[in-house]
C-alpha cells in the first residue's frame, strides 16, 4: 500500500492545469500587450505634435497644450455630468429590478433596459439631434431666464438645445444600461443571509438595502461606473453629431458655445486632417488615454482603501 501511495501522490505534472493556467496568463498578458501597442502607437504618432509649428493649430492656439486643454476639460466635464446623472438612476433601476419589482416582472424589465444597450451610437446621435435637443430647448430657455445668475446656467441660451448638457444626457442614457446591468447582477447576488440579518433587526426595505445590499455591491458599483465613465469619455459619434462645439474652456451648460470632447474633435477633424494635423489629433487621443489612466487610479485607490470590508468571502 505504501508503494501505491508513493506513486499516486507524487503526480505527473497535470497538463490540464498547466495548459489552462498558461492560457489565462497568456490572455491576461495579451491584453497588456495590446494596450502597450495602442499606447506606443499613440505615443509615437504624438511626438511631432508637441513640437508642431504654431501655424498648424486651428484657431487662436499656438501650441499643443492650449489646443488640448479645452478638449480635456470638455471631455471630463461631459463625462462627469453624464455619470452624475446616470449612476443614481442606474442604481435605482438595478434596485428596482432586484429588490422592488415583483419577481416575475423583474426579468422582463431587465431585458427592457438591456435593450438600451442595443441602440447604436449613431442612433443616439440622430435621436439627440432630432428628438432630445428640440425637446429640452424650451426648458433651457426657462432655466436661463430664471436661473441665469447661476454661472452654469448663464445665457445666451442655445437656439437648438445642442449643448454639452444635452450631450451629457445622451451619454447618460448610453451608459445607463452598462451600469444597470452590472449593478443588477451584483445586487441579485447579495447573500440572503445578510439581507435577513438586516430585516430581522427591524430594518425597512430601504434600510436593508443601505445596510446589506449597497455596501456589499459598492466595489461592483464603482467598477460599473468606471466602465460607464470609460464609455462616456471615449464616445465619438454621438457627441460629434449632437454637440455644438467651440475651442474654449466653457462652464456654461446651455449655450451654443461648448467645450468639445477629445474623441468628438478627432472624428470632426480627422477626415480633412493632413501632415502634422493628424499627429496633433492623435496626441489629443494620447491625452485622453492619460486622463483615463488618472481617473482609474483614483477609483482603484477608493476600492482598495475599503478592501478589508469588501463583501467577498
Amino acid at each position, binding site marked *: 500500500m505504501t508503494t501505491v501511495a508513493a506513486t499516486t501522490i507524487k503526480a505527473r505534472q497535470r497538463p490540464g492545469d498547466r495548459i489552462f493556467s498558461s492560457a489565462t496568463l497568456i490572455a491576461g498578458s495579451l491584453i497588456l500587450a495590446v494596450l502597450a501597442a495602442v499606447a506606443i502607437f499613440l505615443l509615437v504618432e504624438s511626438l511631432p505634435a508637441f513640437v508642431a509649428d504654431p501655424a498648424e493649430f*486651428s*484657431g487662436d492656439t499656438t501650441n499643443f497644450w492650449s489646443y488640448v486643454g479645452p478638449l480635456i476639460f470638455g471631455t471630463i466635464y461631459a463625462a462627469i455630468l453624464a455619470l452624475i446623472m446616470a449612476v443614481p438612476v442606474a442604481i435605482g433601476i438595478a434596485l428596482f429590478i432586484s429588490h422592488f419589482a415583483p419577481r416575475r416582472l423583474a426579468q422582463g424589465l431587465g431585458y427592457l433596459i438591456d435593450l438600451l444597450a442595443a441602440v447604436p451610437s449613431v442612433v443616439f446621435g440622430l435621436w439627440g*439631434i*432630432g428628438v432630445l*435637443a*428640440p425637446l429640452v*430647448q424650451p426648458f433651457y430657455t426657462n432655466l436661463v431666464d430664471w436661473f441665469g445668475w447661476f454661472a452654469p446656467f448663464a445665457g*445666451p441660451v*442655445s*437656439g*437648438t*438645445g*445642442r449643448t454639452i448638457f444635452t450631450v451629457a444626457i445622451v451619454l447618460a442614457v448610453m451608459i445607463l444600461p452598462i451600469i444597470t446591468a452590472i449593478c443588477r447582477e451584483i445586487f441579485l447576488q447579495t447573500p440572503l443571509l445578510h439581507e435577513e440579518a438586516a430585516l430581522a433587526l427591524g430594518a425597512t426595505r430601504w434600510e436593508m438595502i443601505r445596510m446589506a445590499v449597497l455596501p456589499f455591491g459598492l466595489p461592483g458599483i464603482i467598477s460599473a461606473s468606471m466602465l460607464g465613465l470609460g464609455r462616456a469619455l471615449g464616445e465619438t459619434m454621438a457627441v*460629434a*453629431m449632437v*454637440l*455644438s*462645439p*467651440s475651442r474654449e474652456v466653457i462652464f456654461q451648460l446651455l449655450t*451654443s*458655445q461648448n467645450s468639445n470632447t477629445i474623441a468628438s474633435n478627432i*472624428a*470632426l*477633424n*480627422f*477626415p*480633412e*486632417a*493632413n501632415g502634422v*494635423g493628424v499627429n496633433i489629433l492623435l496626441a489629443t487621443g494620447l491625452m485622453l488615454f492619460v486622463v483615463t489612466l488618472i481617473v482609474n487610479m483614483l477609483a482603484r485607490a477608493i476600492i482598495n482603501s475599503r478592501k478589508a470590508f469588501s463583501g467577498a468571502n
Partner: protein
Amino acid sequence: ANEAAPADDAPASTLTGTLNGAGASSMDAAQQAWIAGFQTANTGVTINYEPSGSGGGRKAFIEGGTDFAGSDSYMSTEELAGEFASCVPGTKAVDLPVYISPIAVIFNVDGVDELNIDADTLAKIFSGAITTWDDAAIVALNPDATLPSATINAVHRSDDSGTTKNFTDYLGQAAETVWTEKASDTFPFPGEGAKGTSGVVDAVTNGTNMIGYADASQAGDLSTAKLQVGEDFVAYTPEAAAEVVAGSPLVADRAADDLALDLNRKTTNPAEYPLVLVSYAIVCNEYADAAQGELVKAYIEYIASAAGQTVAKDAAGVAPLTAELEANVAAVLATVK
C-alpha cells in the same frame, strides 16, 4: 438579388476589377449614382467610393491607398511637389472638376419665408457682428418682411469641410472689408456648430431663428435666401451655379492639364450664383498599374460625360458641367493611361 449580373444585356463590357476611391463627402450621393450607372454598364466592375473627407481622400490617394480621390479643393502646391504612389514614378496627378454644387443659405425663422441678403450682411451674421433678426441691415434688405426681434442662431459646420472653405472663400472675396479671415476648412468664428451637411440642415430645421449654409441639394423644404449679385437678388439654381464656374479662369501657374479653377466670387452678373462648391476628381497622369489606369479613365470619362452629369443632376441635384468644361475634362482624360 441585385448583385447578379443582368442576364440579357447588350454586349457586356470587357472591363473587370475593383476600383477604390475616397474623398469629399459632398459628392458622395453623386458618386453613388455614378457608380450605379457605371456598374450597370460594366457588370464586372465594382467601385467603392468612401466619403471620408477631402483631405483624407487626397492623402490616401497620394500614399497609394486609393485609385482616385474626390476633393472639394484642388491639390496644394506642396502636394503636387511630392510623389504619387499610384502613379508611374516621376509623373504627377491632375485636378479635374466634375462636380459643381451651389451652396444654399438656409434659414428657419418664424413668419419669414423669403430673405434677401448681401455678402456684407451675411459675413456680419456669421462673424457675430449682427446678432438679431431685426437688425437695421437686414431690415433694409427686406423691407416687406416681418422680422422678429430674436437672436440670430447662425449654424456652421463643426467638422472641417470643403463646404466651409468655399463659403468662407466667398465671404472673404465678396465681403472683404467685413470678413478678414482667410478661406479655411475650419469655420473661424464662434456660433452654433453642427456635424456634416445633414447636421447643419437638422440644426436649422429643429432650432428656432436659425440660419446656416449647406449644399443646395440638401436644403430640402427649408427656405433659402437670395444673394445679392450686382443689383439683383439671385436664388441658387444649377444653371446659375454652372454659369459662374464657366466664367471662372483656371488657377495660374499650374500644369496645363490641371483644371483647378479660380472661382469668380466677385461676379456682378445676375445670371451667376457665386456661392458654389466645385469638387475635383484627382487622377494620375499615368498609372503604375495600367489596368487600374484603364478602369479609372473609363470611370471618370463616364462621370464627366453628359450622361454622367445628367445622372448626378437627377440623383444628387448638382449642376451639370457646361459643354466647354466637359470638353476640357475629356481632353485631359484622353491622355491618362
